[in-house]
């Protein structure tokens, strides 16, 4: 049993791609060795730095076991003529490498055949790896690849510069991207001079640590966190702001990390915290520090790719850069204020929203129209909304796109507008709505915090989705360049969390109407498919939301969505009801019965046998039929009543009470009888049930015990 090590040395890999590639290399190597019978269990350990991805495995066999394999040859009818071997038999013997007299005979279903037992010699591990591992390396997924060699023989994330491949102390002679594997690795670019030879896989991490490279990302992370703690302790009461994404980034940007504490002038604290933190985190990859009260303190922490900063030169350089950045931000903050948001709206005529959909000015006008329509609809006691504020916020929402601060820090769009609105003394309802317009950025993010903000955010997203769908540019497969799925998820989450009575069909009809008379309209295609496309798109989003975010069972989700998906809040209430009622004993039999009803109606329709217009009691011959008809008659108004009150659980419980009558009906009554009138009457009863009682959920979608 041997240890195997593979290290692929590269020019700096993008930080965001390192983790995935490291794990994939480990998995692929392990799977290859398993597939080739060179390893029994055991697990691969992956390593990575910006300049390498590596994998180490123990328990690799020196070679594959020899195999005996029976090979079937030609039929004996062809192989012998008059008891003498023919050229066909000789050719087979030659092919499998045994002499003719060693051939045997086997009989299978098709007859008697020549056969030979062939010994397949197991190949050495080094051989197998040299042949097959390069293909695995080439298959690693990278979000973006490049060419670098003349003739462009391969694409990879960045140029490969060295490869170490060792099976214990022996080099595995593999080759990838024109680089032959050897025992030579590379140390830290600056901290280590001279060669780094890997003698055996077991020494890998230790050898590289001497060369100032910590190959385990987990170890680097610990080291960074410890160093962040230590540097922060020098400021009494202070804490560094935890930021998981940032930690992972700096782990993947460093081979031998250390941390410095820097400071900035207190006067910059007059800038909004959002701006300061964005500059530090997104642009400089610094950690922010807060004081004991959670307020931003005038310090930062930078993670270095070197062992320290004894002369303070690095701190000085970083402080200098941050000072310039903050000074810029401050300059923008002050000059931007000279033109208030209200005046900037006009400037939006020169900012393109989307090349076929016009400018942001056009978009703002459409958003204002949409919030007015929505506001009129929602302005009820339960959803009190300041309609003037939402109208004004919609008009001003995009004005910050003309500010220097947003041009410099695009990720702060919306936030900057909100901050300016506050500074320009606009009502809080307006500034908050501008601030939150892009929320939620993800399913984990918070939704717009006020009803006015929710309105503006909905209008913005609905306008984009409507325009893009009308242009025929809806997301397909993995392609969603305008992040419309995220926008739609945001719409769903916002409607639900605010409990808004939004009807998606009306919202999107109005959103499309907003484009009426614009130049964009000439570019619209297949408008007759628009409504169905939107409905299908949102059904998927709702499915995702109910299943993956809210944890409903997939059949419950299917049942609820089959009964309508336009009113999102209602969909959720119905899903909750069904999840509650599902636990009661009558629920499952009712689902079974509804499936049966659906099947009968379908088969009848296929046979051309249609239900009567209406059920008629006088045609009901069987007592069980009458009992069911009466039960339905009594239940239907109660269900309608409860449904109106949105007491879906109550309504479903009422429907479940039909169970005894239904059971008896199916026991005693034959639906598909020869008498056409009686049959049509019974079908009418069933189809009425299906119609009246599937408005909350389609029970037939529920997967019952018997089906599992």
């Amino acid at each position, binding site marked *: 049993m041997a240890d195997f090590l593979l290290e692929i040395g590269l*020019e*700096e890999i*993008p*930080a*965001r791609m390192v983790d995935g590639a490291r794990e994939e290399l480990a998995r692929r190597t392990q799977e290859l060795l398993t597939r080739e019978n060179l390893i029994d269990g055991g697990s691969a350990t992956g390593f990575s730095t*910006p300049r390498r991805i590596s994998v180490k495995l123990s328990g690799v066999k020196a070679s594959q076991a020899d195999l005996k394999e029976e090979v079937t040859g030609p039929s004996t009818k062809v192989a012998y003529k008059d008891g003498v071997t023919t050229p066909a038999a000789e050719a087979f013997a030659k092919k499998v490498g045994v002499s003719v007299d060693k051939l045997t005979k086997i009989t299978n279903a098709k007859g008697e055949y020549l056969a030979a037992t062939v010994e397949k010699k197991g190949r050495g591990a080094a051989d197998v790896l040299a042949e097959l591992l390069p293909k695995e390396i080439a298959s690693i997924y990278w979000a*973006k690849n*490049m*060419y*670098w*060699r*003349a*003739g*462009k023989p391969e694409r990879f994330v*960045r*140029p490969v*510069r060295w490869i170490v491949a060792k099976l214990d102390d022996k080099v595995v002679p593999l080759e990838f991207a024109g680089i032959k594997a050897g025992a030579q690795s590379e140390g830290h*670019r*600056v*901290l280590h001079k001279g060669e780094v030879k890997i003698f055996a896989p077991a020494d890998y991490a230790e050898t590289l640590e001497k060369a100032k490279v910590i190959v385990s990302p987990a170890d680097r992370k610990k080291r960074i966190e410890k160093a962040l703690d230590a540097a922060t302790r020098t400021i009494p009461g202070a804490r560094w702001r935890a930021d998981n994404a940032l930690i992972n980034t700096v782990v993947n*940007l*460093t081979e031998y990390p250390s941390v410095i504490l820097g400071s900035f002038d207190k006067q910059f604290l007059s800038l909004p915290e959002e701006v300061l933190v964005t500059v530090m985190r997104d642009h*400089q990859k*610094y950690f922010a520090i807060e004081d004991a009260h959670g307020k931003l303190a005038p310090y930062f922490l*930078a993670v*270095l*790719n*070197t062992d320290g*900063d004894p*002369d303070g*030169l*690095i701190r*000085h*350089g*970083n402080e*200098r*850069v*941050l*000072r*310039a950045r903050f*000074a*810029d931000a401050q*300059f923008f903050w002050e000059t931007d204020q000279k033109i208030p948001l209200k005046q900037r709206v006009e400037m939006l*005529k*020169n*900012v*393109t929203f989307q*090349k076929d959909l*016009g*400018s942001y000015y056009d978009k703002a006008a459409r958003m204002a129209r949409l919030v007015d329509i929505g506001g009129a609809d929602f302005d009820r006691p339960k959803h009190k909304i300041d309609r003037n504020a939402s109208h004004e916020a919609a008009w001003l929402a995009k004005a910050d796109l003309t500010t220097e601060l947003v041009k410099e820090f695009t990720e702060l769009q919306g936030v900057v507008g909100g901050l300016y609105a506050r500074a320009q003394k606009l009502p809080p309802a307006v500034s908050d709505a501008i601030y939150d317009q892009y929320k939620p950025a993800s399913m984990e993010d918070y939704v717009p915090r006020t009803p006015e903000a929710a309105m503006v955010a909905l209008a913005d997203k609905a306008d984009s989705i409507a325009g893009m769908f009308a242009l025929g540019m809806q997301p397909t497969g993995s392609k969603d360049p305008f992040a419309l799925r995220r926008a739609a998820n945001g719409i769903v989450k916002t409607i639900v969390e605010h409990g808004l009575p939004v009807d998606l069909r009306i919202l999107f009809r109005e959103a499309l109407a907003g484009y009426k008379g614009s130049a964009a309209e000439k570019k619209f295609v297949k408008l007759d498919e628009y409504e169905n496309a939107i409905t299908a798109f949102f059904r998927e989003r709702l499915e995702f939301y109910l299943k993956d975010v809210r944890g409903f069972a997939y059949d419950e989700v299917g049942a609820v969505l089959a009964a309508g998906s336009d009113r999102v809040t209602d969909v959720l209430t119905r899903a909750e009801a069904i999840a509650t009622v599902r636990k009661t004993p009558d629920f499952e039999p009712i689902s079974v019965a509804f499936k049966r009803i659906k099947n009968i109606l379908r088969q009848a329709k296929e046979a051309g046998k249609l239900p009567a217009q209406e059920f008629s009691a006088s045609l009901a011959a069987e007592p069980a039929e009458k009992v069911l008809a009466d039960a339905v008659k009594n239940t239907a108004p109660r269900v309608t009543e409860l449904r109106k009150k949105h007491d879906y659980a109550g309504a479903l419980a009422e429907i479940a009470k039909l169970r005894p009558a239904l059971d008896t009906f199916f026991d005693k009554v034959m639906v598909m009888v020869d008498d056409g009138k009686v049959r049509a009457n019974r079908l009418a009863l069933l189809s009425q049930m299906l119609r009246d009682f599937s408005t909350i959920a389609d029970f037939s979608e529920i997967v019952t015990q018997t089906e599992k």
Partner: protein
Amino acid sequence: MSKPLTFQELIFTLQKFWAEQGCILQQPYDVEMGAGTMSPETFLRVLGPKPFSVCYLQPSRRPADGRYGENPNRLFKHTQCQVILKPPPPNVQELYLQSLQAIGIDLRKHDLKFEEDNWESPTLGAWGIGWQVMLDGMEVTQFTYFQQCGGVDLDPISAELTFGLERLCAFLQDKESVYDIVWARDPKTGGEITYRDVRYAEEVQFSAYNFEAADVEKTWEHLRLYEAECKALIDGFPVAKKSETDASRYPMLAAFDLCLKCSHLFNLLDARGAISVTERVGVIARIRALAVGVAKSYAEQQSATANEPAVAAGKS
């Protein structure tokens, strides 16, 4: 410790370093442009199979970036030092680090990171993969492996290194404002000439011109004229290329100058606030059509003729 390099010493040193790596030293191209990448020394020479390595300075004019000399870090015109290595030697990153050492940066005392930053210019139909090189938290170099240029797939690939000299020099001299950079020091008296002495007036006057004075109608007219002439040359090439003699003397290089003119005039109109939303997309597409048209014709011209000497780096 010796004094940090002056602005002009920084230029000498970088040029000397890259010349020693086998680059030819080229002079700045004498047509206005927004970035060193747009110089024919890069944009056209990276096309086709011939090895070519060059180092040149390129004053880069970005009318919208002008700040009347008031912002310490933003300039209408800044100086790029551009290095093209075609094909890049395997130790290209190592050479790059040596160039930093050469200008007085002791890497052992600083923090260096290569952070992903891919470059793309839709107007030039060009893109590449690479990094921004961060030194103590400041971007000192853009390092790009060109993949496509003028809509043409490249083979071999070229490595492009772009140093923003004002920023780099301010770092070396530890100045807060580029205007305080020492441009030159009198060898006899030790008297210092600053960046402000040399360039301040230019920043002020060109900001005034770009933002306020440029005559919008005439600038549009210039743009139309240059575009028409460029387009006529591109359109004439298919006929000329049928004859080998005519193909090699066909003025695609002149067509490219005209294309650069258009690009600069567009930037100027943009800074002037004279381009509306509907026009903007259209004009960008028109300039892209010129750049791509020139690149395609030039690449064809190259494969048809082979009269240029190859210049390759890293052969020492």
